[in-house]
């Protein structure tokens, strides 16, 4: 039927007929193959994306450590022996590390080499010692074997990301350092342990000292604000628009508005946040850049259409007979709503809310504009502290020139995806378990 100018002589069973049928069947198979190919391509790319991130990032969950015989010399920690925590906190712990590693390699005497030797350790390794001393000042004066964090280059080398066979000029670990590391390795003084720093610290310029806990807390606080604003407002507007609003121009306008808002690019919400929440009015009531409060408000405006649309669909799905039965026994319209319709629609509303929250958790662009890209080391305590969020942290690290941040970025992405999977699984579960078909 593709070609109307075919000669009428082609009768069933003739050669030309046979040929054409074959051609048409071949086209059919080809077409079907294209479809399968398209799906395979889409799924293949998704798999490639996940594999590339996991293969880059799984090593970040381990951190190389080096064992050193450290003498907690009171002279450098607390010369006057006051035992005052404030004095202890200011002790020269770097010096302890330096002394310890030089004693381990007494043959290194050159000043330059000694400095290199110290660089095997993370520049933030002294905090480990400080925390130990603060926890138990009694260890001052003793000598202990302690595992301290290695520098990011040593870490990369130990994880096999730096190949010792490439020429020395092309790698970040010198031959000399490899000799030292091999010596340490031979006596079992190098190990890989679970990277607790990554899960308990805030951001840092040093890859081996950088963690996602600050960003996770920031994300949590931001989502808290988003949820606290968008859920009640979303449900109330959905109830009003679906059940109570008169059909007039005003409500039509609101409806068109909500549908359009759902399609506004997220950067535009960032511009709104910048101009309104951080504009004259916002600054007047004390809103500032980088606050989870501001980020949460911007994300709440973005999530609102999602929640309203989902909630309206869920409310609409409750059959009218239920409303009529309740009205029939004398319930007021609001009672019908709160006692019958809302409880029945709640699984659907919650599903929509969780999906909206998952979107908000992954959102980056609007938060860049309201200053959540700042370099923040401290863990935020409440919604008015400076904070960053997980996707923005990923963005900051992805921009960083340090090679060792690549694995941490990938690991942070894995954590983010983990949370998203968890939230979506929860939404699916809710839908499967509680949603009723009437």
């Amino acid at each position, binding site marked *: *039927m593709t070609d109307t100018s075919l000669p009428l002589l082609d009768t069933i069973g003739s050669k030309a007929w046979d040929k054409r049928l074959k051609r*048409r069947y071949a086209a*059919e198979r*080809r*077409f079907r193959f294209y*479809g*399968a*190919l*398209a*799906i395979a*391509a*889409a*799924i293949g*790319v*998704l798999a*490639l*994306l996940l594999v*590339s*991130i996991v293969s880059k990032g799984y090593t970040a969950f381990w951190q190389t450590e080096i064992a050193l015989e450290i003498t907690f010399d009171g002279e450098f920690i607390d010369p006057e022996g006051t035992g005052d925590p404030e004095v202890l906190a200011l002790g020269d712990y770097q010096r302890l590390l330096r002394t310890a590693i030089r004693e381990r390699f007494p043959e290194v005497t050159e000043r330059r080499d000694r400095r290199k030797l110290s660089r095997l350790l993370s520049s933030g390794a002294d905090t480990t010692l400080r925390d130990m001393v603060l926890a138990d000042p009694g260890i001052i004066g003793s000598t202990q074997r302690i595992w301290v964090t290695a520098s990011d280059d040593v870490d990369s080398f130990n994880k096999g990301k730096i190949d010792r066979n490439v020429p020395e000029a092309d790698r970040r670990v010198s031959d000399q350092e490899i000799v030292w590391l091999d010596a340490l390795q031979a006596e079992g003084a190098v190990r890989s342990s679970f990277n607790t720093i990554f899960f308990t610290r805030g951001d840092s310029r040093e890859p081996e000292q950088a963690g996602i806990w600050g960003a996770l807390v920031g994300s949590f606080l931001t989502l808290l604000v988003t949820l606290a604003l968008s859920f009640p*407002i979303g449900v*109330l*507007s959905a109830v009003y628009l679906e059940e109570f609003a008169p059909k007039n121009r005003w409500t039509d306008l*609101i409806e068109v*508005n*909500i549908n*359009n*808002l759902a*399609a*506004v*690019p997220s*950067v*535009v*919400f*960032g*511009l*709104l946040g*910048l*101009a309104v929440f951080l504009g004259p009015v916002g600054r007047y*009531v*004390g809103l500032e850049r980088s606050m989870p409060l501001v980020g949460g408000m911007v994300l709440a*405006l973005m999530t*609102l259409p999602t929640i*309203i649309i989902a909630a309206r669909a869920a409310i609409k799905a409750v059959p009218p007979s239920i409303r009529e039965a309740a009205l029939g026994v004398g319930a*007021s319209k*609001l009672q019908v709503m709160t006692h019958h319709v809302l409880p029945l629609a709640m699984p659907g509303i919650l599903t929509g809310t969780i999906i909206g929250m998952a979107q908000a*958790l*992954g959102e*980056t*662009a609007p938060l*860049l*504009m309201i200053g959540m890209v700042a370099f923040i080391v401290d863990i935020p305590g*409440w919604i008015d502290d400076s904070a960053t969020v997980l*996707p923005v942290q*990923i*963005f900051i690290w*992805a*921009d960083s020139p340090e090679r060792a941040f*690549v694995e941490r970025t*990938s690991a942070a992405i894995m954590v983010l*995806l983990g949370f998203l999977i968890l939230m979506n699984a929860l939404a699916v579960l809710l839908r499967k378990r509680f949603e009723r078909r009437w």
Partner: protein
Amino acid sequence: METLIFLSAFCLLCAFGFYLGRARALVTAGGRASELHSRPHYYGSYVAIWCGLPALLVAGAWLVLEPLLAGWVLTANLPASAATLSEGQLSLLITDIKNLATGNVTSRAADPELIAAAESYARFRDIGRIAMFGVMVAVAVGGLGYARQRVLPRLRARNSVERVAMVTMQVASTIAILTTVGIVGSLLFEALRFFAKVPFTEFLFGLDWSPQTALRADQVGASGAFGAIPLFAGTMMITVIAMLVAVPIGLFSAIYMSEYAGPRVRATVKPVLEVLAGVPTVVYGFFAALTVAPFFRNFGESLGLTVSSESALAAGMVMGIMIIPFVSSLSDDVMNAVPQTLRDGAYALGATKAETIKQVIVPAALPGIVGGVLLAVSRAIGETMIVVMAAGLAANLTANPLEAVTTVTVQIVTLLVGDQEYDSAKTLAAFALGLMLFTVTLVLNVAALHVVRKYREKYD
């Protein structure tokens, strides 16, 4: 944190009001709930609302007035030396005092005068806050007492409570409108200020984009050029590349899923494709910048081509992958909506499945498909993180997809990230670009809806 504690205490007070109101109603009715006009808990809610609402209004008013009062107190208590300062120095001084009071970093060493001013400022704010808490509690208790005394069996508590609920719902549903008004208002306002500095025609038709304004007036290129054509061209190019990836893959996936796949395959493939839409865009950006772009560069090098490490091709292709589910799920829906009778008719005439799809189903579903594609285009134009991370920064008017181009969204982000003075042309340019972006996506969305509605074939 103490605000949180106070708020929880406040909620407890309201809960107490609820309990009190309900108990009071039952007492006045002699324990017979049927004597009451409303169910007892409505009396509880009535009292709780009287307890909470006025106090919250007071808190809102305080939030508005307090910074004003604190500002007055601060200026009244300034050190004597401040009288001679210029306006700019004065505002810097005030900022310093505020920072000192909240324990932040200041721009100068704190002298005793400054510390004294900061302390009195901090004291005023503390007193103010305690006063607010006190007034709130007083108003709440007063409201509670008033409402409790009004609780009588004939009080129409349900009607009052429902009226409050209705007003609350109406207010909530106007937030959506307010958001749109806020977006349009802020974009227009800032964009107009931009167009006062840079002519509209120059922005729209200029070929040169270099928004760096110089620090000194005599520097080279001090003016900054704001011709947005290179940005529009870059956005177009990346969008076209994205659509070249997303439309064929999305459309063919949809065809396969709606016409060929059995229910089991459908049930697994559809959610998997939707995962593509759920992956955060920052993850796609990372993937584009660290995996796809280097791959294209190396591949291009092996063919003897120079491919920029921030090529439009890499950003566009990854964006296309992100958009696949938008095209596929919408097309899938509209093709499923084509009635079975049309398929049966085509089969009865001897058409194969592919012929039916090509000549019957796709034409019947075309308006929906076009609508879906338009929505996908609008999504591609507004997409930010992928291009911020994988496309270039320099405005480059080129038609070569292997070179780096920049887009509208990239420029919005780069112009606004970091600390800038608030009303330089550079900052305002971002709002003008935002206005363009908002307008174009809005028109595309409206057009998509229009196409779907107007050309939809009605079969029933």
